C-alpha cells in the first residue's frame, strides 16, 4: 500500500468455514466456504464498499470483523491489534471502537424496549453515562444527530417507519463513538424515496466524526455513490478492489464487468451492451476449482479451472484476481 497513513483495519486471509454435519454421529461431512481468504485495508475516515450477490460472503465478512461470528482463519488488525485473539474485557473494549448497522430495520430493534432503552443500552453496558439524567441527555443528543425528535425517546420501535427505525439503529451504533461502522445493507430494505435520506445521513455523520465505513451492499449504484474504494466479492473471495471511480470506469474482472452491466440505469436513453452471465451462482459447498468464476466466465481458459488466481495490485492500487487480466494492470 502506498498509503502513508497506517490502515485502521487490515484484514488478511480471512476465512470462515461452516461445518455441515451428517450421519448418526453428526460428523463433519462437508464445509461451506462462506469466506475463503479475504484481504483488504480500510484507512481512517474511509468508506470501503463490499459488493456481491447473495451467498458471496460479504455479510459474513462484516460479522467476522465484528467478532459476531468466529473466523476460522486469518488475521484482523484493528488499530494495530489482532481482533481475532481478543477475549473478555478486551473484546468488550473493542465494541466501543467498532459498531454495526443492520439491514432489517424491523428485526434489528428489540420490540420490547423503548427508543431510550435501545439507544442508551451501549451507554449502560460501557458505563458511559454518569447518571440517569446524563443518559437521557446523551440519548437526546444522539436522536437529534440522526434527525429524530427528543420526544421519540419514550416510544417503541413498532411506532416508527422503516427509515426512522434505521435512524434509531444508526444512533445506537453512534452512542459509543466508534471509529469504524460496519454497514450491512443499511438501505436495501428501505423504500426508494427513503434511501437517499439515510445515505446522506451516513455521509454527514462520516464527515462530522471522521468515521470509517465498511459498506456492504448488493446495490452497485449505492455502493459506488458512497464508497471511496470498492471490493467485489464472488463465492467467498475478493475478485477486484479499486477506487470507486476506477472500478466503475475501468472494471478489469469479467465478473465485475457483468455485474456492472446488469445494473439497470434509470435513463431510457442510455443504451448499453450487456454482458450476460449464464446460469446461477454455484453452490458454496462445492465451489468450482481454480477461479470460482470460471464456470460462468465468458472468457475463461483451461488454466482458470486449475489455478486459483492471486489478487494482484497494479497501478492506482487497482487489484484484480484474474489470470487473463493480470497483464493489463
Amino acid at each position, binding site marked *: 500500500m502506498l498509503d502513508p497513513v497506517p490502515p485502521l483495519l487490515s484484514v488478511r486471509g480471512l476465512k470462515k468455514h461452516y461445518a455441515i454435519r451428517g450421519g448418526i454421529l453428526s460428523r463433519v461431512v462437508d464445509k461451506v466456504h462462506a469466506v475463503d481468504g479475504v484481504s483488504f485495508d480500510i484507512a481512517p475516515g474511509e468508506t470501503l464498499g463490499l459488493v456481491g450477490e447473495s451467498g458471496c460472503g460479504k455479510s459474513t465478512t462484516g460479522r467476522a470483523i465484528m467478532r459476531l461470528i468466529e473466523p476460522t482463519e486469518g488475521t484482523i488488525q484493528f488499530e494495530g491489534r489482532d481482533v481475532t485473539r481478543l477475549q473478555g474485557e478486551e473484546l468488550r473494549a473493542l465494541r466501543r471502537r467498532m459498531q454495526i448497522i443492520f439491514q432489517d430495520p424491523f428485526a434489528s430493534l428489540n420490540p420490547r424496549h423503548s427508543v431510550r432503552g435501545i439507544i442508551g443500552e451501549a451507554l449502560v453496558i460501557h458505563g458511559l453515562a454518569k447518571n440517569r439524567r446524563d443518559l437521557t441527555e446523551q440519548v437526546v443528543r444522539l436522536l437529534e444527530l440522526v434527525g429524530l425528535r427528543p420526544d421519540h425517546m419514550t416510544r417503541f420501535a413498532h411506532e416508527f417507519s422503516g427509515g426512522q427505525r434505521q435512524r434509531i439503529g444508526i444512533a445506537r451504533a453512534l452512542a459509543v463513538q466508534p471509529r469504524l461502522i460496519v454497514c450491512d445493507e443499511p438501505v436495501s430494505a428501505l423504500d426508494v424515496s427513503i434511501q437517499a435520506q439515510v445515505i446522506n445521513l451516513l455521509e454527514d455523520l462520516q464527515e462530522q466524526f471522521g468515521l470509517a465505513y465498511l459498506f*456492504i451492499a448488493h446495490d452497485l449504484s449505492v455502493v459506488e455513490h458512497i464508497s471511496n474504494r470498492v471490493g467485489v466479492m464472488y463465492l467467498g473471495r475478493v475478485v477486484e478492489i479499486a477506487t470507486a471511480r476506477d472500478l466503475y470506469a475501468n472494471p478489469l474482472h469479467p465478473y465485475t464487468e457483468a455485474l456492472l452491466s446488469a445494473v439497470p440505469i434509470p435513463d431510457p436513453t442510455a443504451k448499453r451492451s450487456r454482458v450476460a452471465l449464464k446460469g446461477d451462482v454455484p453452490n458454496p459447498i462445492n465451489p468450482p476449482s481454480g477461479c470460482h468464476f470460471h464456470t460462468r466466465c465468458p472468457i475463461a481458459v483451461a488454466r482458470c479451472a486449475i489455478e486459483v488466481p492471486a489478487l494482484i495490485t497494479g497501478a492506482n492500487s487497482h487489484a484484480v484476481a484474474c489470470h487473463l487480466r493480470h497483464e493489463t494492470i
Partner: protein
Amino acid sequence: MAGSTPASRSAEMPAAVIAERALVRHPPASPLGEAWRRFRKHRLAVVSLMILLAMVLVIAVGPFVWRVPIDEIDFSAQLSPPSFTHPFGTDDLGQDLLARMIYGGRISLAVGIAAMMVAVIMGILVGAVSGIAGRRLDAGLMWMTDMFLSLPQLPLLLLVLYLFRNALAKALGLEAGLFVLIVLIIGGLRWMPVARLVRAQFLSLREKEFVEAARALGASRIRLVVRHILPNAMGPVIVAGTVEVATAIIAESTLSFLGLGFPPDIPTWGRILFSAKDQLDSAPHWALFPGAAIFLTVLSINFIGDGLRDALDARRVG
C-alpha cells in the same frame, strides 16, 4: 441472506399495510398496552377473564361471608338438595357443599397455579440453558426432555405418591405435605412442552438482528438472555402457562377422583366429585356443582389463553 430483502418486500400486501399502519395510530403505547388493547378485542377471553376473576373473588372472600364450617356433620340433612340453608345442598354426611366448594376451590386453584409455576420455571430453566448452550449440553438436555415425555405418567404418579406420601405428610403436616407433593408431581411431569417451546424461541431469537446488535454493543451473555431474549420469548410461554393451569386443575381432579389426592376431610373439587360418584342417582347436585366449577374454570382459562395468544402474537411485535 444479504441481497434478498428488497425495498418493498411487504409492499402493499394488504394485511401488512393494515397491520403496520394501524399501529401508528395509537402513539405512545408500550408493548404491554398494545397487548391489552388486542386482548380486549377477544370477547370470549374478556368474558372468561371476568368469570375467572369472579370465581377467585368468591373463593377468596367466600369464607368470610358464608361462615358455615366445612366439616359440620348434620345427619338430619343428609344428601339434601339445594335449599336456603344449603344453597348447593349437602353431601352424605350432611356437610354444607357451598362451604366445601369454596374451600375446595382454594385448593384446586392453588394447585393449578402452583403446578403451573413449577412447570413453567423448570421449563424455562431447561429450555433457556438448552437454547443458549453449546451443541452437547443442548443435545443432553433435549434427550432428558424426550425421556421424560416418554415416561408412562399415570403409573409413575401412583408410584411416587405411594413412596413419598407418608414421608412428606409427616414432615410438613398432612395438608401441606400432600399439597407440595401433588404440585411437584403435576408440575414435574408437565415442564417438557414448556422447555421445548422456550428452546425453540431461544434458537430463533438468538439469531435475530437485535440480539446480534446487543452482542455488538458488548452485552454479556446474561444480559442478552435477561434483557433481550427472554422477554421476547415470554409471549408463547405465558399462553402455554395459562393452559397449564387448566391442565393441572384437571390433573388434580383426576388424582383426587382416583382417591390418590387429598383425603376426604380436605375437600377439593376433584375430591368432592369423587365422593359424589356413588350417589349420582339420589343426589345429582353433589356431583353437578364441583363438575360445573371445574368445567367453567378450565374453559375460562383456555379462552383466556386464546385471547393471550392473539394479544401476545409475536408477529406484530417481533
